């Protein structure tokens, strides 16, 4: 089992999770974070830290495991992130919006580390 980052993170990217991860298994895109499923030790500390509740255990994924696939794919492509960087200035505006992934998701890597 692993934890996965899901839709509410898109455009918010608050990064509180990064600060508490004991194994630094977060990877950073321009407007989204992912967890590397092979590196996550399933400790669950990040889950309650996320202010927008974007992190879930993978047994709460969609039936087609969409988020697990996203986390797996982009953790191989993006750079590792080990400290909290600067969140998007307009993060608050997107906080309560739903289905952000299909609208705003960017494949570009982030650059905190």
């Amino acid at each position: 089992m692993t934890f996965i980052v899901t839709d509410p993170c898109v455009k918010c990217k608050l990064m509180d999770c990064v600060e508490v991860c004991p194994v630094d298994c977060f990877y950073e895109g321009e407007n989204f974070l992912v967890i590397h499923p092979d590196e996550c030790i399933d400790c669950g500390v990040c889950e309650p830290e996320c202010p927008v509740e974007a992190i879930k255990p993978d047994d709460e994924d969609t039936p087609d495991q969409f988020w697990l696939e996203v986390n797996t794919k982009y953790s191989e492509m993006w750079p590792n992130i080990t400290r909290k960087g600067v969140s998007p200035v307009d993060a608050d505006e997107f906080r309560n919006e739903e289905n952000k992934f299909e609208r705003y998701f960017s494949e570009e890597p982030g650059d905190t580390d």
Partner: protein
Amino acid sequence: MSQEKPKESSTLIDLQAIAEAKKLFLQRVTWVHHWTDSLFSFRIERPDSFRFRSGEFVMIGLEDGNRPLLRAYSIVSPNWEEHLEFFSIKVPEGPLTSRLQHLKVGDYLFLNKKPTGTLVTDALKSGQRLFMIGTGTGLAPFLSVLRDPETHEKFDEIILTHTVREEQELAYREFLEEQIHADEIFGELLRDRFTYYPTVTRGEFRTQGRITDRIQLGDFAKDLGLIGNRFNPLTARVMVCGSMAFNKDMASMLKEHGLQEGSNSAPGSFVVERAFVG
């Protein structure tokens, strides 16, 4: 005649190389104590730069085929202690604990540089009573939190419960029943403010059974002289550390009593962490 290097030192050099490559500390074991056939504790030297908050866990481990094999362990020591103590079970087939149980003084362990966790007083709002509810090796982080003076500034009263299967598995019992009360600093600090409440699920014991049952049936409240068998969201703060199933049961009970889960970024009235095994 050239003298061959002793095997021990070449092993240490290999370990140092792995530690450096993986950005880990390599720390010497200074103490090992076996409680039972399946439970033991050990200490390593604490690096000067290693800082943590009482109640946190950290990854520690051994070398496995030129790579570190690490698992998360709660730190038993409070944050001011000079060494780092850990409390572990021995799992015969466990990749790490099956080897860790043979640990001797003078061996070396890897220590990750990033302690973390939610069983910290920072994740709880101030309250009157702090309940620390643990099963098995889930006792470990509470031994740390209990000995942090900040805990006693934040809460008037501490109640620590420890549930195990058999009485002999009540590790640290003597420490919690006697030694801590004789301690120069904590003896005074804990006077009339600390209750240790062990329960045993198999065999005769004065407080028998699962802690969840004792709470729900009202025995816990009765034994402690508390009013009602529910946690009061205004005054009670709770830390939970045990098996996954136990944590789930406790968390749903606490939510049902009106308590809210806290985290580092948003303190609440209870926090949960699983006891790490394997």
